């Protein structure tokens, strides 16, 4: 059994969280509130200090890159929302924050999520062994019908009805597969916690 108080604290809190599976109870409630408080403090320190110190204080005061003051100005503008009358001021940093990334993602998503995915769906059936050609054709069929499932401009009637039904078949198989595949990952997390309890804390398993 471990003699490290840190391990003991961690083990007790681990059990406290597990107790939620049985029912919500005071021990869990304590652990949950502690987790919220400690993690909120942790991230405040990590992000506030890393951002304001590294991206504002150091560049401006040590490196004299005065343009970075603008970040501080935008950040300060967010505080305007504490007074309802000046809340509109905070819309500027929000507009900046959202639009900067929106502009950036447009070409990236078009390239990676649309064009390249369409490209990988195309294939030359003559150049492939039959088994692979069939698999590729199934992929093609699945992509086309799944995409047709998301066609909003018409009622699902006639050919669209058939193709979106086929699309649902693919979607359901895909979801089943994702579900099944994820089971493994979820269980390994639990294995990790048990390894901690059994090895690090109790020392039963080596």
């Amino acid at each position, binding site marked *: 059994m471990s003699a490290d108080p840190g*391990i003991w604290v*961690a*083990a007790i*809190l681990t059990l406290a969280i597990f107790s939620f599976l049985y029912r919500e109870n005071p021990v869990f409630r304590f652990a949950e509130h502690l*987790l919220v*408080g*400690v*993690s909120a*403090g942790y*991230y405040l*320190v990590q992000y*506030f*200090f890393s*951002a304001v110190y590294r991206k*504002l204080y150091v560049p401006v005061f040590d490196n004299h890159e005065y*343009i*970075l003051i*603008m*970040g501080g100005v935008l*950040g300060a503008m967010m*505080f305007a*929302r504490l007074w309802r009358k000046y809340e509109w001021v905070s819309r*500027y*940093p929000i507009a*900046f*924050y959202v*639009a*900067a990334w*929106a*502009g*950036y*993602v*447009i*070409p990236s998503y078009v390239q*990676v*999520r*649309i064009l390249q*995915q*369409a490209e990988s769906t195309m294939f030359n059936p003559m150049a492939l062994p039959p088994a692979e050609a069939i698999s590729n054709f199934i*992929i*093609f069929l*699945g*992509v086309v019908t799944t*995409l047709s499932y998301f066609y909003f401009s018409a009622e699902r009637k006639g050919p669209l009805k058939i193709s979106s039904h086929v699309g*649902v*078949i693919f*979607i*359901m198989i895909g*979801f089943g*597969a994702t*579900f*099944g*595949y*994820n*089971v493994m990952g*979820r269980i390994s*997390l*639990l294995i*990790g*916690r048990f390894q901690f309890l059994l090895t690090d804390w109790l020392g039963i398993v080596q």
Partner: protein
Amino acid sequence: MKRQGPVVVAFIIGMLMLIQFFTPNPFFLRLYNLFLDWKQVVLGCTLILGTWSLIRYHTRRIGRRQQNWQYSYVTLIGLAFMVLAALIWKTEGGPYRWMFQNIQVPMQATMFSLLAFYVASASYRAFRARTFAATLLLIAGALVMLGRVPVGALIGGNIGGHEVTVSTIADWILNVPNLAAKRGIMIGVGLGMTATAIKIILGIETTYLGKSD
């Protein structure tokens, strides 16, 4: 100033970032890096607003003696302790790091590991051959689940000269129908995301600025 200003800002900033992708001009790259730095500072500052909101939420609960108000002290003390610990003993070691490693990390990991239980109860409920669609979900799920553990490679046999096991079927499901569905969804989502981003830049979408229509 109040209404149109932010929309104009969104247009200019968004367009600059859009152009950035297409040109090797270093000015745009510098701009991009600058914007990222500004964004970090905005997030850092807003975290103070967020934390303020958390503090107010809990002080109100205590003030009004709402149900379970005593626990709000735990949150507030935990928060205050972390901030003070960082200020007094710095973040590389000391109590700040100890709290992170022995309180935050194990609880987060345990919360995450609850998924092993939830995934079991959810699959027990959802994987039932009620409808055609649910049956497909069930079959694909069960095959992949079996195929991804060592047992799966042992179940199967030789069909037409090919070694077919649950593992190979599972791999085929992952690589063919699953891939097709994922890709179809991905293209659709890509279009939706791109359209939304275009709407933001062009000022067609403004709800995020808190404007109702």
